[in-house]
């Protein structure tokens, strides 16, 4: 509607990310580099996905199962990318520890590893927010607003900002959970992340029904809260054990 509204929508989507960045990540240059590289990973995976689906676009049928296939393939691909990211991180951890031994400094602490996981997850979340929400926000800086037919309760920009916020939180903290799960080989952590991701993505399909976003969007926020709670409990447990 105006510059203020546009900025407001952008901050709804990216506000928590900005505060995490300023308070935790900006202090350590290595975490900034981790964030940039994980954003790049997410972008490359998105480009590959779009390349695979390009021939089928635009999806004209309103049948639900096409969208389900799109979402299921996309989410599985992204979870696969997360696994690749974890493997690269293991190699990086070995190199960092070798470097630390060489310069006679302490090895990586548990909090360091969690911070790297946080930076990686934040990279994914920021990439999601930018590509799905911010890139469409440019008209919001102008003089009018835009409503989608299926969801005429709120302006389109506001809905996409709230969904991006939920997904950002989910991506950020599920990376911490996933890294921890792979490090400790706990099945519950390892399985929690793909399941919640899949559930959240399928819940966005509720938005396809007319008026469905009144149910879908709060459910997404609830799943983001569930991720946060799980991550909090896991981190408390790890830190207490240490």
């Amino acid at each position, binding site marked *: 509607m105006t510059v203020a509204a546009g900025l407001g929508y952008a901050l709804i989507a990216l506000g928590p990310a900005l505060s995490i960045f300023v308070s935790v990540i900006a*202090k*350590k*240059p*290595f*975490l*900034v*580099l981790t964030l*940039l*590289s994980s954003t*790049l990973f997410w*972008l490359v995976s*998105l*480009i590959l*996905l*779009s*390349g695979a*689906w*390009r021939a089928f*676009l*635009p*999806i004209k049928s309103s049948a639900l199962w096409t*969208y389900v296939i*799109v*979402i299921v393939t*996309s*989410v599985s691909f992204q979870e696969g990318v997360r696994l690749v990211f974890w493997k690269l991180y293991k190699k990086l951890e070995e190199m*960092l520890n070798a*470097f*630390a031994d*060489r*310069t006679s*400094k*302490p090895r*990586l*602490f548990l909090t*360091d590893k969690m911070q790297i996981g946080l930076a990686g997850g934040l990279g994914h979340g920021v990439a999601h927010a*930018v*590509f*799905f929400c*911010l*890139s*469409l*926000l*440019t008209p919001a800086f102008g003089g009018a607003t835009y409503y*989608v037919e*299926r*969801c005429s309760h709120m302006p*389109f920009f506001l*809905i*996409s900002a709230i*969904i*991006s916020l939920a*997904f950002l939180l989910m991506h950020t903290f599920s990376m911490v959970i996933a890294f921890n799960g792979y490090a400790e080989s706990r099945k519950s952590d390892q399985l929690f992340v793909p399941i919640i*991701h899949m559930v959240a*993505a399928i819940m*966005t*399909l509720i*938005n*396809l029904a007319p008026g469905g976003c009144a149910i*879908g969007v709060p459910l997404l926020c609830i799943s983001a809260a569930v991720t946060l709670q799980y991550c909090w409990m896991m981190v408390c447990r790890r830190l207490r054990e240490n």
Partner: protein
Amino acid sequence: MRRRRTPTAMDGSILDSLGQEIVGVMSPVSICMLLVVLLVSFLSPLPSSIDSPSSTPVTAATLVYLESPSDPPAKKLAGALLNAAVFVVLIAAVTFLLVILYYYNFTGFLKAYMRFSAFFVLASMGGSILFSLLRRFSLSLDAPSAILLLLNFSVIGVLSVFSPAVPIVVRQSYMVALAIIVAAWFTKLPEWTTWTVLLALAAYDLAAVLCPRGPLRILVDLASSRDEELPALVYEARPTASNHSVSSSPFPAASVELQPQYPVNFNPNANPNSEPRPNSSSNDSSSGPNQVDDSVVEIESLAEETFPLVSAATSISQMGSTQGDLISSAEQDDIFETSRGIRLGLGDFVFYSVLVGRAAMYDLMTVYACYLAIISGLGCTLILLSICRHALPALPISITLGVVFYFLTRLVMEPFVVGASTSLIMF
């Protein structure tokens, strides 16, 4: 009784300072790109005026073919390739001229010319950007005050670029300002020409730095054999804990040192005083006490040096949104690292920002994709630098990745993502 203290996170882990130099180079590049994107989005011409051919300036990059939107794609492509070839030839010629001048020790002339061109860029091109901004936002500033501010700005810019007494932050800001102004000007070129010129320059950079007969390589060898600094404009990312004295050589903006034995590792910012200089003649008055003991050689030549050569062919007029300036850029860009910090030529800044600015004319998604591609290319080049230890061209990897990501995003990713998010399906 034995007491053993286990290290805690309070003692400081290696994560605290790792990668500081890389971030120190990436942040000015990011700031430059961000400001160019903002400038381009504020000052972009209205769609109705794009069709008029008078809005495209006649420059060294459009000498052969002036693109207009109504041409068929084949003609546009052929014309753009011709433009790019002419541009690269011009830049190569100017670089060779610079090498010859440097070989015959015309250092006073070079220095004066660099001062003049820095002043010209800041005052004239910066002034035109300032006036268009004033017009666009309808800010009230009268002409005498504007001219006074502009003149002061330019004079301090010239002083800060070449004098060692100015604080490093001021010098870095002026470097970034110079790059922003030149890049904002370059984005006025027509679209196909921009892409072909960028790719041609990346190829030229690769050849000029790595081939044994390339002009930039010859320049670096000359400068290092004379133990002098290069006549160039360079951004220098100083590490925060610097305790070196300032050098007083004739070209304090850049310096050339030979590479020492660094541990091939993440942190090239090792103990600066540990390695001795390979060349022992470091105390003559001409080159001054170079504070850096080690670095990779770096080359750069200044863009604005082409001014007097080609400005006779066009008229410099300034009316409204049209501008008849002739500018070509010969800023080659290589990186070398010193114990003061990594150095990046200003040409790198300019062409990265031109790519991102051109992406901004399409969409924000392409901007972000190109930004990530350029930053990752820069990171790769820096890692290669710590392995290879000699002058490396900074343009090829980043520009190639940037162009590839731009076209992939525009053609492949955007229909998918826009379709998904407007239906409120996200993952």
